[in-house]
């Protein structure tokens, strides 16, 4: 019983810390969004009709996080250029940005780790 209680406590602590950490990341993500994305995709994520695509309702944004990371790192995978590359963002910055975008514009509140971004980056040509 005591073992289980300890495990529960650790789980709870991990959850709380994880949640706090994720809130910080989302905040950083918003700052990055404001700096690098807002000019085209707008503060409300709806883009500019016919010119800059919306993030709200985008299947790329609501789809798998690693696909979205690949899109942002390459500017749409090519060969047709859809968007600028944002590969100058660090793994942690991109993770925070994607968490913000998904939470804000498609309502997906899931942690994304810097390691998972690094894994995507390592697979790109």
């Amino acid at each position, binding site marked *: 019983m005591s073992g289980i209680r300890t495990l529960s406590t650790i789980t709870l602590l991990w959850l709380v810390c994880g949640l706090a950490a994720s809130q910080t990341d989302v905040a950083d993500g*918003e700052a990055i969004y404001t700096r690098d994305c807002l000019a085209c995709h707008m503060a409300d994520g709806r883009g500019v009709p016919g010119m800059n695509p919306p993030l709200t309702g985008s299947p790329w944004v609501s789809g798998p996080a690693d696909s979205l990371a690949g899109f942002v790192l390459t500017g749409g995978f090519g060969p047709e250029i859809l968007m600028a590359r944002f590969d100058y963002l660090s793994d942690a910055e991109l993770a925070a940005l994607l968490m913000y975008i998904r939470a804000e514009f498609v309502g997906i509140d899931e942690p994304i780790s810097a390691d998972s971004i690094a894994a995507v980056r390592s697979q790109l040509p």
Partner: protein
Amino acid sequence: MRTVCWMPLLAGVLFAAPIVAEEVTSAQSVDPSSAVDPVLGLRVPPGFRATVFADVDGYARHLAVRDDGTVYLALTVRMGRGSDMGVVAMRDTDGDGVADTREAFATDIPATALVFFEDDLYVGANTAIYRFSFNGDEVVPSGERDVVVSGFPEQRLHEAKTFAIDRDGNLYVNVGAPSNACMEEFRTRGSPGQQPCPQLQRQGGIWRYDARASNQTQADDGERYATGVRNAMAIEYNAARDQVYFLSHGRDALFTLFPEYYSAEDSAELPSEEMHALARGGNYGWPYTYYDHLQGKRLVAPEYGGDGSLAPPAGEYAEPIATFPGHWAPNDLLFYDGQSLPERYRGGALIVFHGSWNRAPLPQDGYKIVFRTFDGERPAADWEVFADGFKGVDVLANPGDAAHRPMSIAQDPEGVLYVSSTVSGRVWRIEYVGD
């Protein structure tokens, strides 16, 4: 956190206030304290009356009015917007200020520009300029459709061919540049510009042809008359001065691409939208330079080594005869020479600004028609708002929320004005009724 994240931006706004003070309000301009009629969708100065002439299905472009008063409107489909294409001819047969006949033609053409010359209607599409001839007083031209010039590059950005025709039949065609600033890598932060920019060979300039000839091609006929023009949507021949004038759309994203040199506030206000008098052999600066109306000088673009203060060698590029704030998107120009407006409008320029998308995080701006008097060859330093309220809200964050976006202005033989809006397909009639 949201508030904290915005603090640096707000600080930028407070400490880098723009010095644009050329807009003046007078008894003759739009009264900024007056209400905008939300049903009508615009606001005009005291003494003027605007009415809805027509609501058309489609993405409305330029207007032209024939000598008999028939109003022609170009329609296109672009960037996922619009439905019908071609030209719509509209007549107000009972004189109530509302179009009561509508006939469409050339519906296979993505039409943007319309000019009447020697009784023919010239239509600017994306890769060609066409000429339509009328038999008698028919509203829809029944003659053959002539290709005046074709073979312009296929492009998805700045593809519309606007043009002007002078009294000698010279046809000046705006061939827009297919990029923001000719970067080596598409809108990528810090990317240098291509040197020389290969797009300037076929695009980013004004080409001259013979308006009376047929079947010319861009590659084999005419000449590159001027270069360094990113996209002169507003280009107009002024018969009184025998001079073509144009306004071009300035480049975007100085802050996004070069945050080391520009703040978000700088990037919202810069570069200037420039107005020029077209001269043969002129170089108007794109993509190597841009104009900064806050500093009052031309500067080297950051893609080409600029840092927000470095000026290019003197004398290499034309100086604008007038400037406007960044990203307002000048889409049409009319030199008023009618009789029905007050004398002060005669010879002055009415300039239509479609409105910005690239001023975020500041509110979007433009979405208005301004009037600028001319003193001889040059426009006056000050300008005033002739029509606004199109966007439908006081503060517009996203261009997609604008009720109307003004596109074109034309005058009928009596000097009454017509104005079109892209996103709503609306055409207004604006007349002077006095006090």
